[in-house]
């Protein structure tokens, strides 16, 4: 199965939100990363056929997904970044409604709904109204509805927003198991969401892909660009305001270890360290990072 993005473009007035992006996605987890406003959500909406491209196509095994219509959408599962629910529905009602929309009959829809609510830890709260749910509970409900139809293509936009670390780990494992023979596109700012499970990383900037490779090769772009500096606390504060600092760790004796992302040695005595995906992100978007 191949999902091809063929020179996809989306323009809103004079602003180009997605600029002729092309990629072929195969089964596995593709992490989609980028700063706010990079075009990730717009891209995902076009993939999910809820936003018409200005030009370009999305093709599934060579077929235009817009022309496929219902047949394509039957293969989709989508968790938008900022989705709503029906406040007066219970979680179970909501899931049953979504199951109906995804083509389930009453009995099968109910069973599948309960199964997924169990999977995301909401089975005990299934009969509560969604309006009483916390943000994290709503997010888990959103993940559950996206997976109802065991979609061949799962698109998740910031799926772990509002989840605590334990829930995020559970989610990661869920997706990793799910993505065996499915195409999963996962857009996130939380590096750990994709660092361990993605087969491929797409980094988007100003509507275009600037990096497209396996996590190892993507991270390798930042090789030799990440440094550790041992300084006093006062100097650490100065560095934080003048350089791209990934992390500052303060010790009780006033000493600090500063992790800096820079093309060249930031100061005498700095030692190069192995980059992480987060370092890579900071490196790519260093001109947009607040100092």
């Amino acid at each position, binding site marked *: 199965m191949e999902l091809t993005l063929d020179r996809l473009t989306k323009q*809103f007035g004079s602003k180009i939100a997605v600029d002729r992006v092309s990629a072929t996605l195969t089964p596995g987890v593709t992490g989609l990363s980028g700063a706010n406003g990079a075009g990730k959500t*717009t891209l995902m*909406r076009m993939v*999910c*056929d*809820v*936003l*018409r491209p200005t030009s370009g196509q999305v093709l599934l095994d060579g077929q235009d997904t817009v022309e496929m*219509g*219902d047949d394509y*959408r*039957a293969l*989709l599962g*989508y*968790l*938008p970044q*900022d*989705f*709503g*629910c*029906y*406040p*007066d529905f219970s979680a179970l009602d909501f899931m*049953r*409604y*979504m199951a*109906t*929309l*995804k*083509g389930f*009959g*009453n009995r099968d*829809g109910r069973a599948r709904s309960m199964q997924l609510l169990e999977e995301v830890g909401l089975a005990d709260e299934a009969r509560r109204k969604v309006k009483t749910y916390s943000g994290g509970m709503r997010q888990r409900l*959103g993940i559950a*509805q996206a997976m109802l*139809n065991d979609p061949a293509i799962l698109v998740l936009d910031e799926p772990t927003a509002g989840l605590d670390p334990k829930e995020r780990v559970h989610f990661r494992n869920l997706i990793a198991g799910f993505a065996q023979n499915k195409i999963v596109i996962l857009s996130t700012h939380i590096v750990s969401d994709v660092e361990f499970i993605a087969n491929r990383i797409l980094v988007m900037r100003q509507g275009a892909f600037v990096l497209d490779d396996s996590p190892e090769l993507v991270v390798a772009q930042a090789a030799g660009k990440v440094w550790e500096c041992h300084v006093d606390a006062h100097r650490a504060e100065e560095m934080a305001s003048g350089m791209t600092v990934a992390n500052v760790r303060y010790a009780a004796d006033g000493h600090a270890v500063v992790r800096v992302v820079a093309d060249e040695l930031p100061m005498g005595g700095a030692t190069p360290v192995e980059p992480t995906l987060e370092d890579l992100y900071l490196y790519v978007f260093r001109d947009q990072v607040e100092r």
Partner: protein
Amino acid sequence: MGSLIRFELRKILNNRAGMVACALALVMLVGITVLDVFTTETYDQSGRTCAGLEALDAYRARQESHAGNLDAARVAADLTIYDRASELAKSEEPAYSSMSSEQVLDVYGFEFWRDTYAVLQDTYFRRLHQVMLTSDETYAKDLGQGMAARANLDLDHGFRGRYSYSPSERALWQEKLAGIESPLEWGYADGWVSAFNWTTFLGFAVAALCVALSGVFSSEYQNRTDSIVLPTKLGKRALPRAKVVASLVFTTVYWWIVVAAMMGGIFAFFGTEGASLPVQVAGFTNLYPLTIGKATLLRCVLGYVVALGMAALTLLLSSKVRSAVVPAIVPVSLMLLGLVGIFFNPTAKLAGLLPLGGMTWSYMQTVSYAVGPLALDLPKVLLLLYGAMLLALTPLAMRAFTRHQVA
């Protein structure tokens, strides 16, 4: 599809503002008819003023006293009674005209009251006199001739004195007039007359319906559920259809509940007798060859088609905008414009095509529209207009939702 329709119905019922509007309209419509009963005042057969249920009994007794065929002899006899009453009353002017029923009784006694006040205040005698009096102050030969003369005068004068009737419209109304049975049968039919008149206000139920349906599509945009429902297998085809079906089911059920509640209230007080009497028991200037029962039911059916058409307009607006306010305000504004517009001559005929205006006049007034040789009375025009709205606008609403872009 059945499950989807049930879910969509549930979403409509979860619209609190809509349900409050529907409940208020229902309570108001039943309430005003009941209130009308208890605020009714008239005089009974002994001349005493009475109110409420006693007044209904007095009206009934009066109407039943006039029951029978209004042939030439009967009409002539009744007009003689009326003329005598007028002369007697004139002889006591100017004092008489400002007196109440009790005052006439006190001053002149029961016999005088019976021969004057009881006749001159009786709607039957007043209407009969009005329709039978010709332009040269003589009476027509019979009721048929009287009604024809009155009708021709109105047709010559034009609707509201402003809108002339074309030859095809005149032919239309002459044909209807010729279809009225002769001699007319008279009797008690106050329940049906009351229902016939009060169906005008069913327009407020239409307004409530529009509020209830205003969020059918727009709430998906407002609540941001569009992004999860649209990219599903049924999200762009079956879902919009289910929304429309659920909306029309809700419209149908609510409409007939309101009609039943209103009629039920009216008939509980007035009774259901007289359904087969001619609609002219509601007014001799009515040119429709229908029974009062049929005319009342036709107004309810017409109102239902108007409700469906307005529901379709609301759905179209709802599919186009993010807010549920606009799809509610526009139809409600059209309703109110219709109610106000019929009172102003320049806008009257146009306002007659709007829901409240149309329902005020349908099967009551001599309102018609012509395009060349084709002339249609107001009810037919409304049926065509709102039927066309239903057929044309619901597919457009579905299409707009299907093509909605989540941005």
